[in-house]
């Protein structure tokens, strides 16, 4: 990474601007030109977009190429962000998504013109139904959190329909932050559920918490420690006995795809982040897709429209769902993310989908085995696809998780997720995924072991890391205290 280092960070695209430069060319206007005033009154027009840029195509290509070099990426190596499932993004998926017949189809075309798209969506739903073990799946949600909101809105509507939407959603203290945020947006109050010494849900705690006011439990399986909730069926039974629902955050589906199915666990609703388990690229923060699978009880409340197949083999968008929660987004969800995900599912096939979980779990356990003598393992319950260490062994030398994370960059690796889950003080959450070859895992483990040694022998080196990145240790407090959120032209 040392070649990245420089004395100056690149100029903004606005700082490249020079009067007269052009980065585009349009054909000459081929219709008679009408006076602007005849088309639209001056009061509704602008004279110019003040301070917008003037740059050439060369300027733009150089600028963005240089910017790109400041990022690390999964294509460059292990990116072990726990909970984020940074896996290989096959390029055939990109090629298929760019097929002109998909890329230039319009969302408001009538069904008969987009039979190929509808058939594709129908097949994706069939495949996700089989993976989830559930009767229906909505493809409309465009991100995990969007799926959560969809799911909890369905729970609310189902309960309201039977007389009482109830007041509370139970959420374990190890949950992703999106869970409580989504539940609040769906109109619920949150009750936090304390996890037990294994980091999982304690049945007696749950039993006491599930009152007549509780609408659902939102649970991540396996949880954010990578630990599977072995008593998941009993958890479902406790909720169902009280008329409540079990929502599964499927962010960690990569740990058990093809091995076990949420529908068989008693789950009523699950979202899957297709940008995690099904390899669609993260793109620096999206786009994603968050399809939601539901049990029979929630089918009537799915977002409309759904994709249906007629007996003659043709497909259509079906709006006739009187109890639907409604539409979660304009048009048909993130269609071209869904295309990529189905491409991936077909490339993997039945054994490949299962092998994802097998090798993701093996890789994580290999890291766990190699690092447990160097880093403290706060929960020693067997874990699946990720492993969570803490900085407890290093704090004596006043070296903390953040320092270890920054030092990893000097070894050429993206850091793990840090300080999450919140139930672990100084958490280092490592998820290698199945994409990593053993050599890469070994190199990562050796870097982590070397850093542990540095924490003992040269703690200052770690505390001041990184040393080789384009910029180092940003003043985040200043960014928040005196926010500068856009470029301002020189006055």
């Amino acid at each position, binding site marked *: *990474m040392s070649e990245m280092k420089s004395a100056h960070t690149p100029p*903004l695209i606005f700082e490249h601007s020079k009067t007269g430069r*052009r*980065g585009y060319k*349009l054909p000459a206007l*081929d219709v008679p030109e009408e006076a602007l005033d005849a*088309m*639209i009154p001056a009061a509704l*027009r602008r004279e110019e977009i003040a301070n*917008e840029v003037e*740059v050439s195509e060369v300027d733009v290509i150089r600028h963005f190429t240089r910017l*790109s070099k*400041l990022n*690390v*990426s999964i*294509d460059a190596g292990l990116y072990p962000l726990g909970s984020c499932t940074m896996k290989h993004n096959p390029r*055939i998926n*990109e090629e*298929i998504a760019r097929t*002109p017949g998909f890329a*230039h189809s319009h969302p408001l075309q009538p069904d008969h013109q*987009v039979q*190929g*798209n509808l058939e594709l969506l129908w097949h994706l739903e069939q495949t996700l139904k*089989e993976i989830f073990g559930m009767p229906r799946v909505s493809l409309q949600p465009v*991100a995990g959190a*969007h799926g959560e909101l969809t799911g909890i809105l369905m729970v*609310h509507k189902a309960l309201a329909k039977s007389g009482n939407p109830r007041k509370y959603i139970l959420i374990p203290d190890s949950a992703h*932050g999106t869970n409580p*945020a989504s539940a609040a947006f769906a109109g619920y*109050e949150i009750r936090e559920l304390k996890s037990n010494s294994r980091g999982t849900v304690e049945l007696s705690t749950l039993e006491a918490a599930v009152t007549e006011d509780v609408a659902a439990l939102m649970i991540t399986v396996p949880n954010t420690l990578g630990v599977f909730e072995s008593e998941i069926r009993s958890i479902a039974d406790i909720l169902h006995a009280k008329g409540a629902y079990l929502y599964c955050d499927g962010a960690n589906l990569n740990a058990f795809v093809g091995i076990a199915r949420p529908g068989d666990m008693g789950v009523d609703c699950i979202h899957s982040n297709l940008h995690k388990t099904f390899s669609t*690229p*993260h793109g*620096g*923060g999206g*786009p994603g897709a968050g399809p939601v699978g539901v049990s029979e009880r929630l089918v009537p409340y799915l977002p409309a429209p759904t994709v249906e197949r007629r007996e003659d083999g043709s497909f259509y968008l079906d709006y006739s769902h009187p109890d639907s929660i*409604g539409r979660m987004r304009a048009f048909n969800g*993130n269609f071209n993310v869904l295309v990529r995900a189905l491409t991936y599912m*077909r490339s993997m*096939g*039945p*054994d*490949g*989908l*299962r*092998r994802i*979980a097998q*090798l993701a*779990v093996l890789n994580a356990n*290999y890291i766990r085995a190699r690092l447990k003598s160097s880093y403290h393992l706060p929960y020693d319950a067997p874990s*699946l696809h990720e492993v969570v260490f803490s900085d407890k062994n290093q704090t004596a030398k006043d070296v903390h998780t953040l320092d270890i994370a920054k030092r990893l960059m000097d070894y050429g690796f*993206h*850091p793990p997720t840090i300080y999450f889950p919140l139930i672990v003080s100084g958490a280092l959450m490592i998820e290698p995924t199945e*994409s990593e070859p*053993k050599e890469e895992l070994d190199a990562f483990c050796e870097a982590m072991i070397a850093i542990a040694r540095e924490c003992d022998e040269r703690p200052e080196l770690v505390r001041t890391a990184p040393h080789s990145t384009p*910029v180092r240790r*940003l003043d985040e407090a200043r960014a928040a205290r005196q*926010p*500068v959120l*856009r470029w301002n032209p020189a006055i």
Partner: protein
Amino acid sequence: MTLPDPLTSHHRYIPNASQDVREMLDVVGVDSIDRLFDTIPDAVKLNRLLEVPGPWSEIETRRWFRGLAAKNRTAVDHASFLGGGAYAHYQPACIDQLLLRAEFLTAYTPYQPEVSQGTLQSIFEYQTHQCLLTGLDVANASLYDGSTALCEAVLLAERMHKNKTKVLIAKSVHPHYRETVRTYIQNLGIEVVEVGWSDDGRVDLDALRAAAEGAFAVAVQSPNFLGVVEDYDAIRAASEGTTRIAVVAEATSLGILTPPGAHGFDICVGEGQAWGIPTQFGGPFVGFMVVRDALKRHMPGRLVGETVDVDGRRAYVLTLATREQHIRRGKATSNICTNEALIALAANMYLSLLGKEGLREVALQSMQKANYLRTKLSEVRGVELPFSGPVYNEFVIRTPFPASEILADLEHEKILGGIPLAGFFEGRANDFLAAVTELHTREQLDHYVAALSAAISRERR
């Protein structure tokens, strides 16, 4: 059923195979991969393979998916005049090439700024473009799309007016956006009141004034779903005391139309797809939100800010994160986490390449060509243009016959002629919406006029 042995199987996306697996199992200290799944109870284990097709080679994958794509009839082999919130503008070739750079495509959300400056700086630039285009102060890193951006705007506005529960939304806001808002707010005690339009297709100002009392916000779209450009000043005057939300569903219109920020609007949200993003059956697109400075700490979503590093170099970082779900959890300003970063990057590239002059020229050409088509159509017997208000690049066409029949006739001429309004509004069976961009040629516009004229004559017979 015997399951495949993970020791002997292999897959091209999963490097570790038999030798690696054996060595790793030794280090882990178990004798099989299955043992690693012992914490999953047998009762919930699948114990069979999933019944799904595959595994396919790239050759088979291509064949099947291309076969599906070939079943679509699209703008690829037809002249398309479809808009309604998804517009075909030209995306310069270098954009997609740059988007495929692995460092952009395969990076995660920029949590670690030292190794994510490329993404962070790009978002900062994107935020700046949004501010310049809308005339407002602070933009976020992106939202899912225009419809959910409007939902977030309504919820933001509601937070600013604790004692009010009514929001006014013009009936001429995109119907899908209005539906999505109703879904989002269904349990939050918010009342949506829709305000109709006048004969010119603009918001009915009298109805707006009458309904504004007690409302916390008013949301209008310009150009609206009927294609008509609204008068922001008049709307502002008719909605005292509310937070004004402008929706822009055709983002290239900002190249020529006056920005909402210059007319006292507090929030501008919209859909950035028109900035050269393919229509791709509706997604992924990119929602944007730009607000007055006073609202910035109430914004949903990610914000990138400028700061310095320990060596004093200018650098960029995610900031004001205490608004967000990973810190604030149930009290966050939004539940959004994954957004549309890569599409926002494409938009940043588009806006930079086109720049000050190009954005204006795309807007002017789209408007000139739409005007040409509209003028020609007004001379066709049987064609009526029901709304007299000014338009940008999209407008409603009415004939004496059902739109579905007319559009079917046009389809025979390899024209995707418009979007019927019947599915969205009562009593508009004969109306449809047509959009024009810089991609249309005069020949296509003339063909459209001739084909529509012929379709009307045919229906008369």
